[in-house]
């Protein structure tokens, strides 16, 4: 038996909005420690890992580990029927073939039950290693979202380069090019508005903007985003969900082939 009651039901809606365009079907993992998901997009370019800890729920019960294979589009459809201030409870039997979402309005005068069919989904889990990244940038999530959106109107890819002074986003396209630099800024009183760079060595990686824009859909979940990069490794774009957990996106970089071009002639 799995049962989890989330007072801030809007949060679950936001989580779904953030991942449903990236991954169509995924297995949710219910265990005593929490409710989590790891899934790769079908092109094997990005990966999403989400974790909502059990202690973040108002009530959490998980007798046995449980995998729930769900179509995220359909799940989002159901969650859309919940109001943002509704309390959402998820329930599933150990051997059942459905999961139930119960929405209660804060005043308790409206209670809805939605039952979603589970699916068999073949998926594999990657062990994600703890890595000491060459550079970690924490910045306001809205700022990050805006940069990605603006640059996508110019080019297809963005080169993100981190130095001790700041982080530079560059792109170019048919119509021209664009560079946006965000400086380290720790002076602000509110930590959420700071841009903090933790640098071991400068790093520059290039990514497809389409995926970053997709990640930015998680912006409503957190005021700041943490980007961790190392040479030739996927970037991690992490949104921490207060008191609950996090949602992290991994994106494989573009392979730089300039050297090939020099090398050939």
């Amino acid at each position, binding site marked *: 038996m799995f049962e989890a009651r989330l007072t801030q039901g809007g949060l679950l809606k936001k989580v779904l909005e953030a991942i449903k365009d990236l991954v169509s079907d995924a*297995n949710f*993992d219910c*265990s005593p420690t929490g409710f989590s998901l790891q899934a*790769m997009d*079908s*092109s*094997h*370019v*990005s*990966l999403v890992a989400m974790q909502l800890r059990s202690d973040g729920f108002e009530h959490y019960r998980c007798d*046995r*580990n449980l*995998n*729930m*294979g769900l179509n995220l589009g359909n799940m989002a459809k159901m969650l859309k029927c919940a109001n943002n201030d509704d309390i959402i409870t998820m329930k599933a039997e150990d*051997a*059942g*073939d459905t999961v139930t979402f119960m929405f209660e309005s804060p005043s308790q005068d409206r209670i809805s039950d939605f039952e979603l069919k*589970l*699916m*068999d*989904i*073949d*998926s*594999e*889990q*990657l*062990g*994600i*290693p*703890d*890595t*000491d990244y060459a550079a970690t940038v924490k910045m306001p999530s809205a700022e990050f979202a805006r940069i990605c959106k603006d640059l996508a109107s110019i080019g*297809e*890819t963005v080169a993100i380069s981190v130095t001790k002074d700041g982080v530079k986003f560059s792109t170019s*396209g*048919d119509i021209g090019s664009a560079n946006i630099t965000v400086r380290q800024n720790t002076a602000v009183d509110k930590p959420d508005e700071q841009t903090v760079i933790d640098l071991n060595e400068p790093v520059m990686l290039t*990514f*497809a*903007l*389409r*995926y970053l824009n997709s990640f930015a859909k998680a912006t409503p979940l957190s005021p700041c985003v943490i980007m961790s990069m*190392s040479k*030739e*490794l*996927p970037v991690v774009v992490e949104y921490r969900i207060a008191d609950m957990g996090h949602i992290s996106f*991994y994106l*494989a*970089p*573009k*392979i*730089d*082939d300039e*050297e*090939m071009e020099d*090398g*050939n002639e």
Partner: protein
Amino acid sequence: MAPKRSSTALNSASGGGKQQNIAKFFGGKTNADSVNTPKIGAQASTSGSTGVQKKTAVASLQTSRPVAEVASATFSGREAVHAQPQLKRLRKAGTVTQTAATDAEDLADRSPSPSPRQENTTPAKSKSPAKRKSRTPAAGSPEETKATSAHPPSPAGRRPQMATSPAATDLTGSSADDEGQADRDDEAASNKRRKKAVLKAPASTAKVAGVGKSALAAAELHAKYEAGQAATWEAGAPVPFAFLAQTFTAIDATTKRTEITNILTDALRTIIATTPDDLLPTAYLLNNRVAPAHAGVELGIGDAILIKAISSVTGRNEKSIKEEAAKSGDLSSIANAAKGKQGLIGKVTANTIRSVFKTFRDIAKIEGNKSQDHKKALISKLLTASGKGSNEAGYIIRLLQGKLRIGLQEQGLLVGLAQAAFLERESAGRDTSSLAPRLEAAAQTVKQVFSECPSLDELVPALLGGPIKDLPKSVRFKPGVPIKAMLAKPTNGVTEVLDKFQDTQFTVEYKYDGERAQVHVDERGHVTIYSRNSEDMTGKYPDLAQRMPDLLAPDVKSLVVDCEAVAWDPKEGKIRPFQVLSTRKRKDVTVGSIQVQVVLFAFDCLFLNGESLLSKPLTERREALVGSMTAKPGQMEFATFKTSHDVEELGNFLNESVAAGMEGLIVKSLDSTYEPSKRSVNWLKLKKDYLEGVGDTFDVVVIGAWHGRGKRTGVYGSYLLAIYDDENEQFQTISKIGTGFSEELLKTLHGQLNEHVIDAPRTYYRWGESLVPEVWFDAQVVWEVKAADLSISPLHKAAAGLVDPTKGISIRFPRLVKTREDKSPDQATSPEQVAEMYNKQVLLSKTKGKAADDDDD
């Protein structure tokens, strides 16, 4: 329910170092360590279902090899990308011989290495001294090795595949290139001879005796080749698609026929020796088909959907892909480059030949609601699973477009299949001197049976199932599998016909102005009607199918007849021109809704009561035809014919035929056999306009245009026409056409052709530098044009090299006859036909008036 999860955790705890982390990320569970010792980690045990665990284990066993290698490919994608062009250059330079040894050593170092990851990650920096050094053309081997190791099935596979031919030619002593050139010349010459010979000899005589030098050399190589060695997969395991992609690349890299055949033969042998089950899908992919022609199964994939798929797996925008494609016209290289540049996370199960083929068949089957989304998803999956370095993604795209363009023809494929099957299954212990003629004989047999039963579904299992000499027994012509129609050669006039058939008994038949129809009636009485290209046209002619059973003589159980379907006016009781027939709906016609009635003119009987008549003389086939059916006016009639040797009488017959609305006459040798798909000298066509201007009309493809001036402002004033060179897969210009259009027609054509405008000429167009059109078209529209005569022209490229070493042949004063909607661009007139017509014209003008001359020399 039991939600499945196959889950493998990496033993990340022990790892630590950065390199290894990279491996975990990029290779997921697939680095060499984890493949060898798959760990069902904590996550998996939580899933609780044993079935799932078993599945994981099986999966990792089966796929370990390609998987591991793809993982490495993903990571070392950049080397693979490097290596490809490098390889080509190496081959050109002919320095590959050395490679084998170094290659092998290097591999020995590599393959058992417990942490190949390290090697695959470090060179990603690719500025290591070794890498630098290897870029100098002379030091080729390290580079080649990189390609091998970077790519899935390669290690051993690549070397023999890629290097066999040039390396082996080296062994013979002279430099690879010179020898290759000699091969080519030899081949070209023998091709020409063969083409000429066709004019004289009945084509069915197998030319086994004339085995050339190159064939002997090839035989020697074949005898030494050990097929199993090239395989990097275990016997019986699915063959990685990368192996096929490498074969494509190797074939694409050469223009020498013999070399293409050798590469193909080696590759097919490797498959027969290891996983014969994959021979059929391989043959289909090499033939760029998903089913036999008559099955009517087409992929039906447009560029738009391919662009969407490429976009979805590479993160590129559809719009920018579209723009780039409009410029270069080559989606395959865009796909490959985009795929090569995007890193991956985790495991990708490599494409295998059978998985690709199965997906293609699935794609061909998808229809209805959301079919485009579904197709896109399947294509995306294929692209995702494409490894780098062998242009896998590029070839997937080309195959889906139906434009493989590697210079491999169906005949070449048949030779490859024949040789491979023979060498693997029958040649053990034979000395090489007798091998060459035997290979040639095997190839002839396979070509012959395939012309009578053009279905790989029949041929390939038979090849694997028994000796080649038994093929004619098992792979036979039968109702339900159409053969390509026998075609007639154009002539210049009655005199020429008489010259050609001097000592032959011949008959003259009306050439009806309709559509070729091959009508099959099988043992169950089921009727199918096929076009000249073996497409199923039963849906277009349900009325013909319906009336067939009533026309059959009582003792007929099965039958195939060759006919012309002609539009019929039941009120007037006479036939109508082709233009009327072409207004008939093409598909899903119901008998009740038919506007254009059709009469069938039968002229040949190919199969009767379980027996093929293809090898019987025409006299006998005609008897069979008349005996098997009963003519009914307006339904089915026998083609009108006359047997005479008198010039006058033939001339009159021609006039009669024209008066009766015919296109002209077909002259047939009475003792000739039916030669499927051949434009044979045993059938000659005599068109009504033969006596004026050039003998035949030309089917040309419109590839460009100039804007009109003056009265023609706003439409195209003239068009650039091209013929299609099947051998080199090129469109070669033959003429500019600007006269003979009505204003109305100009408008219509302008509208039609505007749909095909492209930004730049295709790479496979050949045109004269001083005759560049203002607008280029995609090669789509085929016109039939008439012309006054042919001349050598520096402005055009048609048949360049065949008559004049550099100049092409142009046609003068072309006039548009009609748009040939029934012909595809690759069925346009060929350079050989143009050259032949030119030669004939030259000869005619020289020997004007002389009755007996032999124009074959």
